[in-house]
Structure formats: C-alpha cells, structure tokens
C-alpha cells in the first residue's frame, strides 16, 4: 500500500488557477455567511430556494445579506461543478481526482443545509453544521488548489525534515477545525464561551509548537515556511479579533443589536479563522509531502556496508 501523498501533478496544473479562484470565492462566501449571522439576517428571506418567490427579491434591509449570500453560494456551486469536471478530466492522481467529486458533494450538501436552516427556522445544530461544512468545503478547495500548484511540484525531492512535522501539523489542523466548531456552537447557541476559550488555548499551544518546529527544521520547502509564517501571523491577529469581539459584545450588551462594530469584528474573526484553517491544511499537506519525500530519498540511499 502506498503511504505517500501524490507528488507529480502531471497536467493537473491546468486547473490550478481555477481552483484558486474557487477558493477565493469560497472565502468570500464564508464572509457573506458570517455577515448573515452577524446581522441576524438568516430568516429575512422566508422561502427557499427562491427568495420571495423570485431570483431578484427587493434589496432591502437584511434581505441584501441573505440573498447576497445565496447568490455567492450559487456562483460557488457553479464554480465547483466546473472544477470537479476539470479535475476529473485532467487529474491523474487518484485521491486528488476524488477530492474534486467530494468537494462537489459537500457544496451540494451545504446548499441543502442552507435551505434547511431557512425552512426549519435556524435550528442551532443545523446552523452549526452549516458553518462547519462551509469550513470543510473551504479546506477541500484549498487542498485542490495547493495540490495542483507549481509549489507542490517545485518542492525539492531531497527535502527532509530534521524534526517530524506531520503528526503535529495534523493535530494542529484538527484542533483548529474543532475550535471553529466550538466557535460556531458559541455563536449559534449563545452557550458559554469557556469551551471556545479552551479551544483557543489548545490551538495556540499547538500552532506555536508547529511554527517553532518548522523554523527549527532545515531544508524545508518554501511553501512550508510561508504557510507556517502565515499561520503565526493570522493566529496573533485572530486572538486580537476574538478579544475585541468579546469586549465589543460586553460594551454593547444593552444596545439594540446588531451593532455595526460587533458585526464587523465578528465577521473578521470568522474570516481569519477560515484563513488559519487553510494555512494549517496547507501545512499538513506539505508536511506529509516532506515526510514522503524524505522516505523516498532514504529508500534510494544504498545500505552502508558494515565494517567487520
């Protein structure tokens, strides 16, 4: 059984830029979704899949956020269909080929969940699931973009890590995903913030360890160091945004919600959370690549004869 990640992208690079565009629009979609939640606009359009029985409802009040979110989501759905077909036609690596179809399945499921949230009046578990599936989809599209990137192939064949990264990178990505889940639960159920704070602590510890280990390692590909640097900067920004959103909520507790500063900061908090997850996914993919390249290099070195 092959335990390594696919390394040669073949003609897959042809869809790389399209995958990047899809990832950018997915990020925009996450921001649009966060604006819907922040502005309490989730049920401003009572029907689904049409909006007020139309594709062009009155652009008033919160309808702008909800219908805008639907339009971006529909566009991302179309992009994903095209991406899945493109990946299927051009991709030669089996797992990556499947990833395109998985992304399409997830975006379809996400659209249905979005409809259910409207038709069932925002049940908290569905809203949390909708938020987490959005991040999952973003991870999938970012993975497709990264696995088809020139950076993925440019990686030095002989690259090897002086310290093992893959488990720590995967644990960090998992913790960040868990933290996004806790954040979504906090946001959609108004439950206590303690689990989210503990999640932040866990993510911070793991991410700091991971970033430190990347910079302690030698001969690593530039993609890994860029992703690690991004992760560190984004994490610092995210902690500040989390603190700011909490303080703003306290400061405006008796104000008529939603307040623009609260919406702006919490939306930025969600957006940066998505970017952190993307950075951690790239780090995890890249660290697996480093390890598999290292193993491949080791297998090429002939056994050293032992002196009698």
């Amino acid at each position: 059984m092959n335990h390594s990640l696919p390394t040669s992208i073949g003609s897959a690079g042809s869809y790389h830029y399209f995958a990047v565009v899809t990832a950018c629009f997915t990020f925009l979609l996450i921001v649009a979704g966060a604006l819907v939640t922040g502005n309490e606009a989730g049920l401003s359009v009572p029907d689904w899949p049409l909006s007020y029985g139309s594709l062009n409802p009155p652009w008033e009040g919160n309808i702008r956020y909800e219908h805008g979110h639907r339009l971006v989501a529909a566009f991302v759905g179309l992009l994903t269909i095209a991406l899945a077909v493109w990946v299927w036609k051009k991709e030669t690596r089996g797992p990556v080929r499947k990833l395109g179809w998985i992304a399409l399945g997830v975006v379809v499921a996400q659209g249905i969940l979005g409809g259910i949230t409207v038709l069932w009046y925002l049940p908290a578990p569905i809203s949390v699931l909708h938020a987490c599936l959005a991040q999952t989809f973003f991870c999938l599209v970012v993975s497709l973009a990264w696995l088809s990137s020139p950076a993925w192939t440019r990686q030095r064949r002989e690259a090897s890590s002086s310290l093992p990264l893959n488990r720590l990178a995967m644990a960090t990505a998992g913790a960040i995903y868990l933290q996004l889940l806790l954040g979504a639960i906090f946001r959609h159920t108004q439950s206590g913030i303690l689990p989210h704070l503990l999640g932040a602590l866990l993510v911070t510890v793991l991410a700091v360890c991971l970033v430190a280990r990347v910079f302690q390692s030698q001969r690593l590909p530039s993609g890994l160091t860029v992703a690690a640097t991004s992760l560190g900067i984004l994490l610092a920004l995210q902690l500040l945004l989390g603190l700011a959103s909490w303080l703003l909520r306290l400061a405006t507790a008796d104000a008529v919600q939603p307040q623009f500063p609260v919406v702006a900061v919490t939306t930025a908090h969600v957006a940066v959370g998505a970017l952190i997850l993307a950075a951690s996914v790239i780090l995890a993919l890249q660290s697996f690549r480093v390890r598999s390249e290292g193993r491949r290099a080791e297998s090429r070195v002939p056994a050293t004869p032992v002196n009698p």
Partner: protein
Amino acid sequence: MMRLKNYLCLPVGLLAALFAGACGSVDIDDEDLDEVDGTDAPAVVTRVDPATAATVNGKVYFEGDLPRARRLAMDAEPACAGLHTKPVYSEVVVPNDNNTLRHVFVYVKEGLEGMMFETPTEPAILDQKGCIYLPHMLGVQINQPVRILNSDPTTHNVHPTPRNNREWNESMAPNVPPKMKQFPREEVMIPVKCNVHPWMKSYIGVLPHPFFSVTGADGSFEITGLPPGEYTIGIWHEFLKEGVTTQKVTVAASESKSVDFTLKQAS
C-alpha cells in the same frame, strides 16, 4: 494514499457527529397542536355577570437605574428612516415621568383554573408602521384571530419565535392584504421579530382568558370583568426581570382593588 485518507477522516467524522446531534432536535408537530385545539377542554363557557364583575388595577414602578434609551439605527434603511422626522428609540425599556414603566404585560397568572372563556372573534391588531411593531406588546386569547398589517412602503417579514406554539416566518410586501393568524397554546410571551429589520421586535401574550393588560404612558394597568375570587397577578417585562413580579389579590363581587408592582435591573 492512506495518510491522505486519514487527513480527510477528521472533518468527515466531526460532521457525522454533528449531524447525529442535529437529528436529535425536537419540534411541535401537528398532532400536538390538534390536541390543544381540542376536545378535552371544558364545554361550559364561564360567563361573568357584569353586575358582580371585579376590577384589579395598579401601576408598575421601576427601582434603581435603567439603561438609557437606545436610538434605533434606521439610517442604513432609507425606506424606514424616511418615515420618521425624529429619531426613533428602542421600546425595550420605556420609563414614564412618574417612575413607572410602559410596555409591561400584566395578567391573571393563577385563579382561573377550570374556567373557560369565550374566544373573541374580534381580531387583535398587530401593525408594522414606521418599521416598528405597533403595539410593542399585545395580549390575545388562545385562538383569537390576530390581524397583521403592513402599513409601510417596504417589505417586512413576520416571524414569531414561540416555545409552545408553532413557529412561522412569512413575508409581507407593501400593500398586501392583512394576514390572519392564531395561537392555539397559552404562552407568555411570544417574541415576534422582523428579520429584514432586526430592530423590530414585538411580544404577544397568549392566554386562555381575557384578563390581561399592558401598561401605558402612565404605567397603569386595569383588568376588568373578573369573577370574584382569589388571584395571582403576574407581570412580564422583556428586560427587567427582578423585583415584585407577582401579587396575590382577592376581589369580592363588584370590588375594585389596586396592586402595584416594582421592577429593577438584575443585579
């Protein structure tokens, strides 16, 4: 390849767990509501002799500091802001000059068990005017028609979020005919909101009897037509929850009694 599969397992597993949680939600189904509409209720309607009917009245005061009135941010909505010549303030806490509170729902909480009262056919009115709900607080009897209007030149949606009745969410474009709705279960209170204009909030109290009132601009209330008896009068305010919120009162035939309440901010 196996490692990539492992990497994908994490979100898939989390999603499966979440979906399992989502499936555990509870909802009120039609059968539950049919039972309420139902047949087990006493068949004899209690009729109060106007000659012996009693009255309970009083005022609701506040104690301590109150949050300052917050201006509603309609500026981003020209269709709403244009309907007002003066700033509009939140109706969550509205103090009167005489240290009393407006928008407090006052009702007979206990003492009418076993009695059944005729459901009015006259609808209660809930209007959307100037991008606020009028009235801010409304009392109705179980199954009493509620006539919902949109007097604004903009689109609203009407979205009650009850715990004990069925939730619904319907849009109302300008100039559409009024909606007629009913609430088949007792509930104090049902929040009603417009998700298009998130500052718009109203509350509907649904009771099995007609003995309720809402405090007005002088903080007073009056519950009339009560059969003589011993009652617990309860009050409900959307923000102030502490203080004297229930009072026992006994009224004889044709008697009028006064009871006052005091609310304060949670410490």
